[in-house]
């Protein structure tokens, strides 16, 4: 049976753990709010970009010689998988969901006889994948979601993917990321970046007014829109990852704080019981000593 001193020490240590987890929860909540604001601020650009792209793509539909970013290379041999995780842990199953989804995807593609290359974004998924698939990883990046993610981070990643495509290093590019549904739920999602799944044209103006004119021609406009669109999509998923990470951490730390509270209650009960038993024992000893005299 644990001594009173041991129990006191354990209660003290669980209490300080609870302090840490509840502080982390509050920090995550504040960061989540900021990340959500940033994600909302980035949406108008992405929406407008999607409308423009749909409009231009509609007018060139059916013509030959379209950019590879839109139609892919026409083959389906080499797959580039881009998993996106956070840089730091202690966020529940947030990162392990990404890791598991990526692993299953890679194994599935390999079973189909495709060549797979991996470009992990975020330290957690890189650490995990470099154990199993170190020979498939062509490069890796950090997300730096602790700070504010600048658009240039997404722009660099987008440029890297575009130039890999130009060099014919892959045919299909798939992004694995956590879709931010709400603070509690983030769903690991596979999104095909190249060839691009064209967005619906929901431009209210295009139905009412005469056809758009383009300057310079549609082809040039399309080929400068597409790399930008890739970067914007990556930026949006980066912001979602940052928001999701903090949401997941908040939930995880909330659970941890609650569990620590329960553990403290249990330990305190045990401590009091032990103390009472000790007193009873001492009394018995004193009384039986007095009777013997």
């Amino acid at each position: 049976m644990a001594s009173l001193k041991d129990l006191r020490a354990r209660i003290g240590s669980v209490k300080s753990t609870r302090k840490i987890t509840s502080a982390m929860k509050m920090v995550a909540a504040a960061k989540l709010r900021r990340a959500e604001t940033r994600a909302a601020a980035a949406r108008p650009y992405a929406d407008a970009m999607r409308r423009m792209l749909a409009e231009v793509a509609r007018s060139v539909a059916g013509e030959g010689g379209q950019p590879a970013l839109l139609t892919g290379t026409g083959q389906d041999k080499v797959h580039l998988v881009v998993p996106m995780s956070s840089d730091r842990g202690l966020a529940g199953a947030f990162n392990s969901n990404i890791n598991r989804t990526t692993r299953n995807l890679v194994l599935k593609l390999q079973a189909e006889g495709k060549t797979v290359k991996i470009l992990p974004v975020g330290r957690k998924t890189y650490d995990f994948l470099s154990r199993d698939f170190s020979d498939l990883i062509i490069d890796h990046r950090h997300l730096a979601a602790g700070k504010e993610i600048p658009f240039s981070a997404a722009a660099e990643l987008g440029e890297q993917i575009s130039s890999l495509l130009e060099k014919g290093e892959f045919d299909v590019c798939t992004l694995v990321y956590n879709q931010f549904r709400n603070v509690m739920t983030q769903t690991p999602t596979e999104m095909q970046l190249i060839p691009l799944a064209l967005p619906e044209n929901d431009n209210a103006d295009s139905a009412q007014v005469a056809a758009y004119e383009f300057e310079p021609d549609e082809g040039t406009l399309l080929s400068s829109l597409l790399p930008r669109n890739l970067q914007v999509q990556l930026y949006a998923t980066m912001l979602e990852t940052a928001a999701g990470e903090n949401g997941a951490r908040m939930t995880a730390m909330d659970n941890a704080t609650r569990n620590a509270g329960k553990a403290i209650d249990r330990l305190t009960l045990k401590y009091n019981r032990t103390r009472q038993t000790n007193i009873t024992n001492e009394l018995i000893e004193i009384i039986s000593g007095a009777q013997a005299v």
Partner: protein
Amino acid sequence: MSIKVKIVSPEKVLFAHDADMAVMPGTEGDIAAMPDHAPLMLTLRGGVVDIYEGDVVTHRFFVAGGFADIAPSHCTILADRATKLEDLSVDDAEARLAGLEKSYEDADKMNVSALDILMGKMQSARAEIEAAQSAIPGMSL
């Protein structure tokens, strides 16, 4: 009669307001968006966007390239990077231009598309220097 003018960068909306006219730097020449303009999509070069109310310029923004979507009732400018004219810094832009000129010297002269991109960036940096100088009182032309 006015149009809704919106200037957005990837990170946020910089300007969203009704205006009478917006003049923007298209890659093939400046274009003014006015109410009932025929629908047009264009690419932008680095330069200054002027927002007019009546005959007065109310807002000036520097955009470093991008796209614009002009329709009869609205005009959306998707800027790669957009700054209010008074927030520009000549020194920053000059440093960037120097860096670009150096990488242009070092660049592979056979890679035409890469040179094109660098040329575009240099043009944008030069336009930024010019715009920043014009924003400083006493230095305007």
